[in-house]
C-alpha cells in the first residue's frame, strides 16, 4: 500500500470535515476520490500532506508514519492544488524551475525536467510568458507541470479540471493517464463523476466527511443495479398509458415528463417486450428508447438521495 489512512477524524470547530475515514491505495493505481463540494476531499488531502493537523487516526505513506518522516515523504509527492498555486509574476519556465529547485533538482537534470514538464503540458512554446497572459486551461496545466516535474511516486490532484474548457480538460485527463503509465500512483479528486469514471480504477465516494462507498467502478455500480431505468420518447400522450404500464410485471415506477416516459423496473424483470407492447397497443408511436446503465452519479444519488452537483 502506498497510502493507508486509518479512522481519520478532523474537526473544524463544529464542522466534522473528515469523519472516521479509512482509505487504502495500492501502488500503480489511479485512485478516484469522488464527492460533492464540501465533502471533505481537500481537507483529507491537507491532512495527508501534514498541512492540517488531524484529531484522530493515523496516516501512513510509503509504509512510513507521516508525522515522523514528513520531510522525506514530501519529496516523493507531487501535489496539484485545487486552487491555482502558481506565481503570476514569474514566467512559466521560472515557475517550474522554482518548484523543481524546492524538490532539490539542480543542473542539467533540472533543465531536462523543466523542458519535459512543459512539453508534457503543452506549454513549452509559451515558457517565456508570465501566466497573467494565460487562459484558464493553460494556468491549470502549468499548475500540473509544477507538480510532476520531479517524477514523484505519488501525485495528488485536487480537482485539477475545475472551470476549464472541454479541450483542456481532455488534455489533462490524458496526461493523468500518461503520468500513471510513467509510474506514478495518482489520487484524483473530483466532483465530476464522468472524469472519475473515465480514468480511475478504484474509487472512494465521500459525503459529509464520511466514506459512503468504495470499490472498483463495477463494484460500485452493481450496488445500485437492482433496478433498471428505461427512458422512452413517444409521439403523443395517452392518459391511460401510465396506468397501463404500471400494471406490467416488474415495473416499480412510471412517470411522464412531456413526451418522455421514465420507467424504473426491477432488475432482470425481462419485461421490455411487454412494455413496448402496451405502448403500441395504445396507438402511440415510439420515437426513441434508451436503457440507462447505472452510473456513479446514480450510485451517489441512491446512497444519499442527492445529486453530486447541487
Amino acid at each position, binding site marked *: 500500500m502506498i497510502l493507508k489512512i486509518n479512522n481519520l477524524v478532523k474537526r473544524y470547530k463544529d464542522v466534522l470535515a473528515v469523519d472516521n475515514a479509512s482509505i487504502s491505495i495500492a501502488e500503480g493505481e489511479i485512485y478516484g476520490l469522488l464527492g460533492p463540494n464540501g465533502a471533505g476531499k*481537500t*481537507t483529507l488531502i*491537507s491532512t495527508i*500532506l501534514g*498541512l*492540517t*493537523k488531524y484529531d484522530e487516526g493515523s496516516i501512513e505513506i510509503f509504509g512510513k508514519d507521516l508525522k515522523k518522516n514528513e*520531510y*522525506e515523504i*514530501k*519529496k516523493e*509527492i507531487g*501535489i496539484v*492544488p485545487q*486552487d*491555482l*498555486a*502558481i*506565481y*503570476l*509574476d*514569474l514566467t512559466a519556465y*521560472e515557475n517550474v524551475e*522554482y*518548484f523543481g*529547485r*524546492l*524538490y*532539490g533538482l539542480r543542473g542539467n537534470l533540472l533543465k531536462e525536467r523543466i523542458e519535459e514538464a512543459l512539453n508534457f503540458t503543452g506549454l513549452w512554446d509559451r515558457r517565456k510568458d508570465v501566466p497573467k497572459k494565460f487562459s484558464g486551461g493553460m494556468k491549470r496545466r502549468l499548475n500540473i507541470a*509544477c507538480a510532476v516535474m520531479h517524477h514523484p511516486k505519488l501525485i495528488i490532484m485536487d480537482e485539477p479540471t475545475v472551470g476549464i474548457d472541454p479541450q483542456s480538460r481532455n488534455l489533462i485527463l490524458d496526461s493523468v493517464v500518461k503520468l500513471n503509465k510513467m509510474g506514478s500512483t495518482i489520487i484524483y479528486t473530483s466532483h465530476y463523476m464522468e472524469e472519475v469514471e473515465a480514468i480511475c480504477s478504484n474509487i472512494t465516494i465521500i459525503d459529509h466527511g464520511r466514506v459512503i462507498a468504495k470499490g472498483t467502478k463495477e463494484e460500485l455500480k452493481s450496488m445500485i443495479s437492482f433496478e433498471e431505468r428505461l427512458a422512452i420518447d413517444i409521439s403523443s400522450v395517452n392518459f391511460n398509458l401510465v396506468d397501463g404500464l404500471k400494471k406490467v410485471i416488474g415495473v416499480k415506477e412510471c412517470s411522464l415528463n412531456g413526451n418522455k416516459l421514465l420507467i424504473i423496473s426491477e432488475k432482470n424483470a425481462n419485461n421490455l417486450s411487454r412494455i413496448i407492447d402496451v405502448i403500441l397497443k395504445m396507438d402511440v408511436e415510439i420515437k426513441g428508447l434508451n436503457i440507462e446503465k447505472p452510473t456513479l452519479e446514480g450510485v451517489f444519488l441512491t446512497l444519499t438521495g442527492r445529486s453530486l452537483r447541487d
Partner: protein
Amino acid sequence: MTIFNFTIRRIMRDKGQLITMLLVPIGFITLVMMLFSGGQFNMSIGVVDYDNTEWTQSFINSLDNKGIIVSIDEDEIEGKLLSNKINLGLVIPKGFTDDVVSMENPQIQAYSINETDVTVPVTIFIDNFLAASKHIAAAADGNIDTFNKGISLYINGSNNVKEAFYDVGESKGSTVSGMGFLVMSMLYFSVSASGIIMEDKEGKTFYRVLTAPVRLREYMLQKILSFLVLLQAQVITVFLLMKYVFKMNMGPSLFNLLVALFVFSIVCISFGVALTSLSKNTRQLSALSPILIIPMVMLGGSFWPREIMPEILIKLSNIVPTTWILISIEKILYGQNLVSITTELGILLMFSIVFFLLGTWKKTEIEV
C-alpha cells in the same frame, strides 16, 4: 536559497516595489535638496564693515561661497531687505577684531526679514566661524599675528584646526532631513516587501511551497533574508546618491551610519512581517501601513526636529523606533562613534524582538 533568490527576483521585477524602494526616498531627498539649496544659491548678503581688519576681510571672503556679498551702508540695510535686494544684512562693529583677540564677547549684528530657512545656514556658519575664531584667539593668547596666521590656516584648511572646527560649520541639516526620509522609506519598503508573503498566501503558492520538502521556518528565514538584502541595497543606493550626486555631508563615518541603519532595517523587517501576519489580506495591509508608519515617522522626527514638538509628544516619541534611529544617525553625523549609540541600538533591537513576537503570535494552521 531558492526562495531567497526568487523573492529578490520577483520584488525587483515589480514596478510598485521599486518605486517604494528607490523612487520615494530619492524623490523626497531631491525635494529636500531643492529646499535647502534653492534660496541659498541666489542669496545676497549686505555687509557693513566698520572694523576693516585682516580678520574681517578673511571673514567676509569666507562668506563668499554662501551668497553674493555686497558692501553697503548701514542705513541702506532696511530698504534693501524690504525690496529683497539683499536677504541678510551684517554689521561688524569697530573694534570687533580686537575684542575677539582679547577674548571678549563681541556681536555681529545680523538683519533679515525674518529668520527664514534661507538665512539659517549662513547664520550657523557665522556662529561657527566666530566660535572657531575664539578658539584660535585663545590659542594665540592675545598675539594678533599668531591669531591672523591661525585664521588663515583655518580658512585654507591645511591643518588640524580645520578638522576640529570647520566640519561643524558645514550644515548637516539637509543630511539629517534626507535621513529622515530614508528612514520613512525603509519602513514603507519593508512593509511592501513583506506583502509578498501575503501575496503568496492569497495566491496559494504559500500552501504549495509547504507541500514541498520545505519547512515553514526555512521559508520565513529566506524571505526575511531577502528583505534584509534588499533594504541594504536601498540604503546604499540612497547613500551613494546623497554623497556623490547631491554632495551632502555624510559625516565622518559612512560605515557607522550603515551599521546603525542595518540595525534599523532589522526593526523594519520585523515590523513588516508582524503587520503582514496580523492583517487579514493585502487590502488591509496596505490600509494599515500608512496609519502606523506616518505617526511613527512624524513623532520620530523624520519631518521636523523632535525638539520643536510639545513636551508630551517628545515623551511619546520614545515609544517609536524611528526616534532612536534618528538620534543614532544624528550622533554619528556629528562625529560620535558606535559606542555612544549602544543604548539606542539596543532599544532598536528590543523593538525588533517585540515585532517578531507579535508576528508569530497567531501561529494557526496553514489555511488551505
